[in-house]
């Protein structure tokens, strides 16, 4: 027998496999490295510019005529100016209140509804579940929603930023799927021991679902924090504006921030002020982001598969 010379296909077969896939060629690796570096830079650089400008000394900002990438020294006067009272401080307070109250309300109402829908004892369980599911497919539309909010007397109140969006049918369905997957033996045992439904929910279901509730809560919180249009639609009174609307007025629409709007005596350069407002509105998201990121893959998947 003559020796078998390996064909190119055979040689390729012998290379180490990564998860069954062939490792990328050097050229592909270089291309990917470039693509990902550029993509990440496009996300990170704007924030560096914004953060730097908000902390750069006024002379440097006015010399640059706008954003600077490297502050020559650190100057926090812009933050002092916006956080020492006045419209930005108030808006920040309102956004915090709306986000905290809204998230608590949303979580409570959603888990109560989701839990009840998993209980076999609930009358019309199927019908009620369909009611939740169907609402996912039909959005009632902007004008009828506005008229409904108006007829409930919610216009021009902080409640209008919370109540109309307090219940997300999608989150209810995700939670229901999660609660439904808990081992029913434990719940049955508690029931036999005479625990009320509320007791079962608070002492068993909630502690077992901490991670899921945290993810859903964070999604609600991000939604409340970022909401801008409901404030534009429902509020006439600018003293109730949340941070996003202030951001729109002074940064997107570029209206000048005057001493009238702030409590500070000295008004720093406009770009610094604008960027400081931007930073203040981004920071809470950045703070919860690592946590959010750890869990959302799971959350998004549950929704995608079971929703």
């Amino acid at each position, binding site marked *: 027998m003559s020796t078998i010379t390996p064909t190119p296909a055979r040689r*390729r*077969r012998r290379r180490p*496999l990564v*998860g*069954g*896939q*062939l*490792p*990328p060629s050097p050229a*592909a*690796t270089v291309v*990917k490295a470039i693509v*990902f570096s550029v*993509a*990440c830079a496009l*996300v990170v650089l*704007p924030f560096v*510019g*914004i953060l730097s400008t908000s902390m750069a000394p006024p002379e440097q900002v006015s010399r640059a*005529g*706008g*954003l600077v990438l490297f502050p020559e020294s650190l100057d926090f006067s812009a933050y002092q100016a916006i956080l020492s009272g006045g419209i930005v401080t108030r808006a920040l307070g309102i956004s915090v209140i709306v986000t905290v109250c809204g998230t608590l309300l949303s979580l*409570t*109402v959603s888990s*109560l*509804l989701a839990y009840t829908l998993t209980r076999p004892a609930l009358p019309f369980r199927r019908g*009620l579940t369909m*009611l*939740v599911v169907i*609402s996912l*497919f*039909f959005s*009632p*539309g*902007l*004008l*009828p*929603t506005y*008229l*409904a909010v108006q007829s*409930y007397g919610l216009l021009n109140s902080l409640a209008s930023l919370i109540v*109309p969006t307090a*219940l997300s049918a999608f989150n209810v369905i995700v939670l229901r799927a999660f609660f439904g997957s808990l081992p029913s033996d434990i719940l049955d045992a508690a029931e036999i021991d005479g625990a009320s439904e509320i007791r079962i*929910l608070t002492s068993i279901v909630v502690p077992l679902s901490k991670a899921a509730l945290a993810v859903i809560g964070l999604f609600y919180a*991000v939604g409340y924090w*970022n909401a*801008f*249009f409901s404030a534009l639609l429902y509020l006439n009174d600018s003293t109730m504006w949340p941070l*996003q609307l202030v*951001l729109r007025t002074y*940064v997107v629409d570029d209206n000048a921030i005057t001493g009238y709007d702030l409590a500070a005596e000295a008004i720093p350069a406009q770009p610094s002020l604008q960027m400081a407002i*931007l930073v203040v*509105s981004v920071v809470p998201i*950045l703070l919860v*982001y690592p946590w959010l*990121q750890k869990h*959302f*893959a799971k959350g*998004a998947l549950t929704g*995608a598969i079971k929703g």
Partner: protein
Amino acid sequence: MALPGLVLLLAFQYVPLAGNVIAFKDYLPFIGIAESDWVGLENFEIITGGDPRFVNALGNTLIITLVQVVLVFPIPICLALAMNSLVSERIKRLVQSVLYLPHFLSWVIVVAVFQQFLGGAGMINNFLRSQGWDTFSIIGDPDAFIPLITAQVVWKDSGWATILFLAVLSQVSTELYEAASVDGAGRWRQMWHVTLPALRPIVVLLLILKLGDALSVGFEQIILQQQAVGLQASEVLDTYVYNNGIVDQNWSEAAAVGLVKGVVGVVLVWGANKVAHIFGEDGLYRT
């Protein structure tokens, strides 16, 4: 216990859904929905009669949807394919962390960031000016509006959109790749015969959902930037309903447009799902 949730659901989903009757009435705010006169289909003449403002909004909406399906939709798929074959887990996780972030920022922030960088007095133009070079104007130019909002959508959401594709790719059995490789398949053939077929169901699903949203494009994003470029370039159906209904107080006309938009969306999802079934895909749901 379910009561608070059901009340909210009824009050803010089903009551407004019924409130769509104003599309068939001549709604006058001071006499209320119940007392306003029925006018049949008169309000829908704005659609059937081809009102120029409506036609403009519809045209812009369809163009933007088309651009987003053709140009924006494939980007996360490509990103996911590239990420999936990254060898180092740590680099993969770092890239994901950075690229997912913009999804969690509000549109106000995204628009502000774009202005600060690309605007007439933005960072890049300031740099060009300081070097004595020509500046460009993207923000506020009606002709550049669609490319601008497309770039914003890509920046905000294409990283996040990879999450579903990556989840599906991680489920692909390694045996399939090994078998393909034993059969002599190279990288591209592995991708063509193993990876892409694995992605097909999720792509079909997302396209169906996208089709249902075909008539609603970036409402918050566009309303924030409308002043700068004018209605001709930037009016889409959602902003038309807002501008015509709430700003100009033509309640019933705007509600008629909103209602047709909603119904068409549901019909499109239903139809696309049927088509997907004909081609042997699972689609969104099976009945």
